[in-house]
């Protein structure tokens, strides 16, 4: 596993996303109310660019006729068939065990810390000690 800097924190505003390429993988980085998540940009169903889908909340129900919306912005619907995936875990809602997309470990790091890290890959993002960065482990 290696760590890669993929964005500055300012690159991705809350509610926004960024598509990056790391080690030949397409990955989507999402800012959900200040928390960052990363999932592979490839729907396991038929290969759509998952990270181009609508980001939505979690819809649940206690009984027919009642609708509960929670976890705003933490789910993504595949842009094709609408299958729902949890941005936190990469698991589909309907079949969490068998239908899932890879979720990557992700940290927000201070530039001051990163400049010391010898094994960090930061070709696209020369690290500056004043800023914060999104670092992904692949």
């Amino acid at each position, binding site marked *: 596993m290696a760590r890669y800097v993929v964005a500055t924190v300012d690159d991705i505003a809350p509610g926004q996303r960024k598509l990056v390429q790391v080690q030949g993988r397409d990955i989507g980085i999402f800012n959900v109310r200040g928390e960052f998540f990363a999932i*592979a940009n490839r729907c396991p169903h038929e290969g*759509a660019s998952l990270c181009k889908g609508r980001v939505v909340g979690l819809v649940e129900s206690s009984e027919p006729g009642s609708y509960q919306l929670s976890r705003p912005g933490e789910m993504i619907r595949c*842009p094709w068939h609408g299958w729902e995936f949890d941005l936190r875990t990469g698991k589909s809602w309907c079949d969490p065990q068998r239908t899932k997309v890879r979720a990557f470990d992700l940290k927000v790091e201070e530039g001051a810390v990163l400049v010391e890290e010898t094994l960090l890959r930061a070709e696209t993002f020369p690290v500056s000690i004043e800023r914060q960065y999104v670092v992904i482990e692949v």
Partner: protein
Amino acid sequence: MSTLELDRGPPAEAKLRVIDCDIHPAMNAWTEVHPYLAKKWIEHLAVYGSHLRHAFSEALTHPRMSPDAARVDAYPDEGGPPGSSLALMRSQHLDPNGVAFGMLIPLRWNPGSQRNLDFGVALTQAMNTWQVERWVKNEPRLRASILIAQEDTVGSVAEIEARASDPNFTQILVLPRTDEPLGRRRYWPIFEAAARNNLPIAVHVGGTNGHPSTGGGWPSYYMEEHHAVAETMQSVLSSLVFEGVFERFPGLRVVIMEGGLGWIPSFSARMDKHWLRLRSEVPHLKRSPSEYIREHVWFTTQPMEEPGRASQLIDLFDRIGWDRLLFSTDYPHWDFDDPRHAFKAPLSETQRAKLLYGNAQAFYGIG
């Protein structure tokens, strides 16, 4: 089903070669069709618009889960709805998916469902010309379908005859929710014209005829409606067979589009079983229903079934008949089938080539 977790792109593979039997072109704006409409119809369209047999004159009976019933990633940068940009259709679908030929299936405005028959006929004429001028002439891979307003058989036959010798058109298009079941005698002049001109009839999901989507009333939810469209195809098939359309028009070919595949073997068997018992009611049938289906009916593959095991899909194709299946994507709709990933079962190269290309090549006599 095995764990699906694809986080890398597919390995280098043989180049895809596909005939896509179901592509939905759209207009950027409804004025696009004006050059092909008489002035009085331009005005009628603006003032009165669509006049259908349900509560909404423009919207579908059951709103879809995706805007425009489309893939979220199919909106052109330059604006306009999914399916309206030839450039995006090329870059997003025709080119990367190896589409050698694509069959256009325009759905708006359901000309066959318009209560005003003259308006419906005028729309079909205009939209048939629109397909050629706007699409086929600009993209040699595309082919058009002859839209007809089937409730006006005189107008329909005239339009078929007007287009039949134009090689840009490969088939006649009808949406199955017609006033009466499609096999009924009132529609036979259309079949006669189709058979005489050796044009297949394409029956693609759609239409509003004022009948509830089920024999027991209207469904509440889109989840139900998306299922009911398959039952609609069952009813169309039943009608075509039991009315004796294939007996009367032995050269007629029909392709059922977007109805799904899972029901075909069981429904054919059901038709056979009960025909055996009740055949005295339909003495005009000289052969079993499944025999007629095997000889006269083809099916597009989208939306592809995904049974629990791959072997079940292969079994399904075995029972339908591999040569009856015509690949389709339904681009740009939401339940799009990607030619690389739609088949959740290992296929041999021969099988894949038949499904993706060979069967449609034979069916349409192209390529």
